[in-house]
């Protein structure tokens, strides 16, 4: 119980710093000074102090969407095996449920974007849902591949089994599934090469187009929730493939988790520097590739598990 609560607090407070860290890494690699890792936190504070805005012609779904998005991210933060494998909510939700909860957040935000009735809102929602529809099968297949050896889709059990037998990660199944999951993590969190979180160019933006009408506390909630989703997805990746340290005492486990996510985030940011954003209609090809990798992971698991 305490472990789960500590996880939620750490992810809730730490995620803006993760985003700050990733921006800082990018800035340094691009030869800029950067704004420091606390800048996203300062942005959130600024946004929270502003007055809430109700754009003309928007309704209850527009106002509810940021809340649902943040709530799904928080529930996933409580469920996942980030610093502890025995969260009280773990039997309530497995990896399928976690995927579906994250999708629920995306769907809520897409509806919020459509509710504005602007061309930007509709465009962002349409693109986001297209990407989501293609990402979902990859995640589920990767889950399939990972759950075969354990016999369960519950996150805690998968993480615990890898923690017991760390060498099992170096199997073709895990590697293929890991690559597939990296691609979908990038797509889900809207990072280069799928989407560029810093762009406001209408030809390319996906996520930013959808949230264009949000301002003040609503925008703060969305920014915070997006940071948490990034943290949670990186954390899930760490928990599924490198769950070392999860069996340690809680404060130590939290520190190890923070370190792992920081390293993963820094690597992702560093990789982004050397990449350009893909054209929107090249993105499905990338996602189809990751789908194929996940399918290969399942096929590989069949032959390896029988041996």
């Amino acid at each position, binding site marked *: 119980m305490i472990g789960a609560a500590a996880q939620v607090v750490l992810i809730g407070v730490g995620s803006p710093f993760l985003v700050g860290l990733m921006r800082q890494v990018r800035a340094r690699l691009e030869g800029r000074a950067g704004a420091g890792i606390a800048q996203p936190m300062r942005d959130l504070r600024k946004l929270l102090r502003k007055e809430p805005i109700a754009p003309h012609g928007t309704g209850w779904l527009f106002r509810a969407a940021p809340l649902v998005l943040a709530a799904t991210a928080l529930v996933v933060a409580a469920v996942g095996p980030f610093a502890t494998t025995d969260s009280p909510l773990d039997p309530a939700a497995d990896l399928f449920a976690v995927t579906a909860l994250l999708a629920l957040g995306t769907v809520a935000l897409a509806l919020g974007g459509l509710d504005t009735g602007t061309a930007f809102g509709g465009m962002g929602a349409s693109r986001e849902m297209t990407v989501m529809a293609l990402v979902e099968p990859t995640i589920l297949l990767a889950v*399939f591949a990972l759950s075969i050896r354990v016999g369960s889709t519950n996150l805690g059990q998968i993480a615990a089994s890898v923690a017991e037998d760390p060498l099992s990660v170096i199997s073709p199944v895990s590697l293929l599934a890991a690559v597939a999951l990296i691609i979908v993590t990038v797509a889900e969190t809207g990072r280069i090469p799928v989407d560029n979180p810093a762009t406001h160019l209408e030809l390319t933006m996906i996520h930013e187009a959808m949230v264009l009408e949000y301002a003040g506390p609503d925008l703060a909630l969305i920014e915070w929730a997006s940071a948490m989703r990034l943290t949670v997805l990186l954390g899930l990746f760490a928990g599924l493939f490198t769950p070392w340290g999860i069996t340690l005492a809680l404060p130590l486990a939290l520190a190890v988790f923070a370190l792992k996510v920081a390293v993963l985030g820094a690597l992702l940011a560093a990789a982004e520097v050397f990449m350009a954003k893909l054209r929107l209609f090249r993105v499905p090809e990338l996602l189809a590739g990751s789908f194929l990798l996940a399918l290969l992971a399942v096929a590989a698991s069949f032959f390896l598990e029988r041996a």
Partner: protein
Amino acid sequence: MNLLFPGALALCALASLLASIPPARVRSALAGTALAGAGAAALAAGAAAMAGRTWSAWLPDLLPLAGVRLELDALGGLFTAVTGGVITAAAIYSIGYARHAPRTAQILVPLFAAALLLVPAAASVSTFLLLWELMAIASLLLVLADHRARPAVRSAGVWYAVLTHLGLVAILGGLVAFAAAAGGESFAELRRADAGGALAIGVFLATFAGFASKAGIVPLHVWLPRAHPEAPSHVSALMSAAMVNMGIYGIVRVGLDLLGGGPRWWWLVVLAAGALSALHGILQAAVASDLKRLLGYSTTENMGLVLIGVGAAGFFEASGERALAALALAAALLHVINHAAFKTLLFLAAGSVLHGTGTRDLDALGGLRERMPLTTIVFALGALCASALPPGNAFVSEWLMLQSLIRSLPDGGVSAAVVMPLAVAAVALTAGLSAATFVKALGTGFLARPRSAEAERAHEAPPSMLAGMALAGAACVALALGPTLVLPGVAEVTGQVLPGRGPAADGAYLRAAASSLSPVLIAAALAVTVAALLAVLRALALRRARRAARLWDCGAGPMTARMEYTATSFAEPLQRVFDDVLAPESDVEVTHVKESAYLVNRVRFQAAVPDRIEHRLYAPAIALADRVGRASRELANGSVHRYVGYGFAAFAVTLIVLAVTS
């Protein structure tokens, strides 16, 4: 208990009478109330049968030679209960919706309902076929109810009539051959008979084709997205949420119960047909812009998912994996129940939109959130359930289905290793696309600003229609939060067909193999978190009121409704991604000014996504039939000599055949 089921049928008859005799003013209210009572009684009778209190009747004099044999067992009880629930909601809804409907349509609805209730209770081949045809005819007449107003109805009726009767021929052929071989036509005798070899294969494939056409399974689905939208909306709900289930019932009854399972390839065929239907259905739904057509294709998708579960159940049973078979069948049956609940809700809400605006074109709707607030809320609930996201109900059954599919791998053999990942991929792709589809339906149909004058003038539905939708919505919520209460009943049913322990309900948790899920805890966690966030935000924002502000319009003044994204534009990226599969057609026609080829006078753009299977499979077949028909006209050119010649030739050939063979 024994009187519940006959009571439901008697109430159907009463409703039919009440729809014909009393004055037009009160007709729909009286008939709707009686039919709602019939539905509730059938729901109770079905639930009682699922709990083991079965009902049977033998009426030897009702039908010459064969007699009528009825028996409501657990499997039939589940389908009767689902149908009863759908009937109740649709009947209450029809009080307001069908007030000005023609009298024949009002009389036929209770008859259709009675046929739907009786089909799963039939216990002999002749009774089953008779009731099956009664159901088909009643629904066909109801589809044609509005044929005077819209010409599209007639074409839909022809498609439906042809395909449903081809299906009947297949089922009739299969079951009659089976009964002849078994030496008796009651289901008990068929069950005892040991049909083996080629006969069993023939019976299974023929009945599968017939039942699949009723369930809207690809490639026999073409009637469904035509006929379901054209029927009045409460009839659409009955057809799409209750009648298609009868196809599933037939496959389970004949394949698993009467034939007692079969070789694995039978079930691989079922599974493949299911996966194909799920993908084709949801892809077509994703690009559809007619609200009811979208829902019709979504029915094909969901029946496909159910067949994936049924196919997996038969496959596991044939492989000797009893527990997995029971799990897969329970998931499929639970999905039947869930689909019935949300599809009733969605079709009734679509009918309410049609009632309030007069259009079902998503590209012309929008802005219903303020004009029809309650309909919007129930449609949002239905859309959540249909898109297989938690805390909706379809998520639960799809979760169970995925659990059964992924458990199969370690020792399922090579065919399992090839098929199951593909089935999981199909279910997963379907889940993602259905989320996009229903975001489109809700987001462009109900949110934002109205895109046409009709949508601008929309008005909320009358109370009886809202009550019908609220009932269906309550069923969705109950199924979403309390699947653990329904699952023991479903396990009873699977136990009747397949011995083996399926998924277990353990307090608030669903347990399948080593995985567990608690829909009610997920919903509670979400609700608590939203409430907490709201409280924190209120405290932080210091209770500042929301300030109204202009939308970002690039500084160009207020945006018109024409600048909004429509359903078609929303689906365009998906259409582009699946370009090779969907093969959309577009046509640009540029008219130039007479004086100069460089000046454009008018540009006309047309885009459509035709159903490719219909295009490729049915169009050539229809063209061929047409050609044969034209060619055969040459045979009958009106000359009497020729006809006499035909008669003589036929007579001579018969005599020769007799002489040679005897």
